[in-house]
């Protein structure tokens, strides 16, 4: 019962943020970039429910507009990673041999960089910016899907129905696309869900380090970065942006957990 409630609530939260990212102006009437230098670092008040930041900008509307970056990068990066990872992973698993070996060595190398270190390296040379974040996080993101799909393809391709499809001389493309992929799509969806949460944290982390989005674009990680020197006098400038990251990521993880149990409790 409590579980169902949590799940329902999580869905609502995710939908809310997706809505915010598309129609931010319907949620808040304040312009996120409007400065008010008389009211710098003002704590939450009647006019500005979450207070104002170092330039007197409304934190609530910056959070609402900031969802654009998180939602867009989260979903888009994972979408590209799924496509690239699935294509390369199924080629690797299905054909095996030299191609498989080569692809696996490449993934070994990319997995040799822990966490967001590779993304940090790429951002440091490419410079900050929206497209560069997507490039950096896709480069680290596709590897997981590639490995996952390859493993699944390897175990599925010896099954009788695949052998049967080969006997009636179906093309490799047809076998992969119509016979193998439909059977592993659920596992891909579960991983993709957790990865959206991971990418949202990664983007916020990069922006926190000053390597992600560039000011004045509102982004949750950068809002904390801009406010960290005011932690003593204006903690609200840090509390709220981070709280939203946590709430969104928490909601996505709950949905991911549910999907994992729903599809197959043992596979991941």
């Amino acid at each position, binding site marked *: 019962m409590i579980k169902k409630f949590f799940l329902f609530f999580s869905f609502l939260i995710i939908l809310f943020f997706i809505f915010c990212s598309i129609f931010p102006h319907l949620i808040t009437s304040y312009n996120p970039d409007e400065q008010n230098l008389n009211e710098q670092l003002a704590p939450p008040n009647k006019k500005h429910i979450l207070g104002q930041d170092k330039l007197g900008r409304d934190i609530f509307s910056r959070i609402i507009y900031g969802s654009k970056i998180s939602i867009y990068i989260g979903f888009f990066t994972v979408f590209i990673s799924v496509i690239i990872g699935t294509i390369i992973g199924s080629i690797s698993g299905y054909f095996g041999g030299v191609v498989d070996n080569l692809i696996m060595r490449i993934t070994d190398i990319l997995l040799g960089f822990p966490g967001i270190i590779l993304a940090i390296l790429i951002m440091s040379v490419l410079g900050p910016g929206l497209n560069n974040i997507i490039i950096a996080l896709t480069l680290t993101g596709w590897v997981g899907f590639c490995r996952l799909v390859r493993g699944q393809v390897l175990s599925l391709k010896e099954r009788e129905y695949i052998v049967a499809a080969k006997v009636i001389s179906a093309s490799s493309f047809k076998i992969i696309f119509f016979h193998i992929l439909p059977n592993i799509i659920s596992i891909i969806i579960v991983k993709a869900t957790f990865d959206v949460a991971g990418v949202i944290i990664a983007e916020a982390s990069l922006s*926190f380090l000053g390597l992600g989005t560039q000011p004045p674009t509102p982004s949750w990680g950068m809002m904390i970065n801009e406010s960290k020197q005011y932690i003593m006098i204006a903690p609200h400038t840090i*509390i709220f942006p981070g709280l939203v990251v946590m709430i969104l990521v*928490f909601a996505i993880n709950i949905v991911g957990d549910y999907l994992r149990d729903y599809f197959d409790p043992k596979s991941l």
Partner: protein
Amino acid sequence: MIIKYILKRLVQVIPTIFGIITLIFFSIHLIPGDPVDIMLGENALPIAKMELKKNLNLDKPIIEQYLIYLKNIIFLNAGNSIFSHQPVFKEILARFPATLQLTILSIIIAIIIALPLGIISAVKKDSFIDFFSRILSLSGISIPNFWLGPMLIILFSIWLNLLPVSGKDNFLSYILPALTLGSHLAAVLTRMIRTSMLDVLKEHYILTARAKGLNKFVILFKHTFKNALIPVITIIGLQFGSLLSGSIIVESVFAWPGIGKLLITAISTRDYPLVQSCVLFISVLFVFVNLITDICYSFVDPRIKF
């Protein structure tokens, strides 16, 4: 047999490290524009630019640059920092102990939190405590380090005035950074211990032990826990990488003088030789920790065949 296995794994690691070095070498050529201009600024003296170009071998053909880089890395000479003019490996090794201390302490804290929580959660499955610990571990996975750090500072340093805000002075200053860094591991471990305890509790030998009328605690700790520990060790090894990359953020939140802080400072001053070497050091360390985890795994569980 085990020596053969270790050697085999060591050989497998070589192409990976070689690839990491290659990727890091070529990353500097992804810089849009002239790297020297970016490192020194457009207005630097031409003679300084020339000198840096020569020092970084950027005036040579790219293949030659690559071979020189490989040779230098093999002889542990990654050049000098552009700003401090110190050998970069010397700077990294000077900062490494701080990062290592932080990482190890965060593992200890994670274990202290996760062990009791995971065990109680498994034994009292579906109880209130179980529910509470699952929510707690889901939160631990969802809280970003760059936010948990400041929240702990606000709570313990500003409101309660118990612990220092940042820096690395005495034992007290270790607590908040290590707790922040360890939160994610604690969450992952709690889940892992719970699942793994539940798996072992289903085994026939536990049923046998119960049938023999053994003491509940003996069953729990001697028979169940010991066997449930195997996947836990692997997780700690595998999570070492995320601790290393997490330390970059934690160190920059708490002004902790480790490699992570060094890396971020190097990025902001565009000290690319130092950036490259920090990334190289962390990655190679990570690859070797994974290797050691694999080998330990085979020691702990004699059922694993090579």
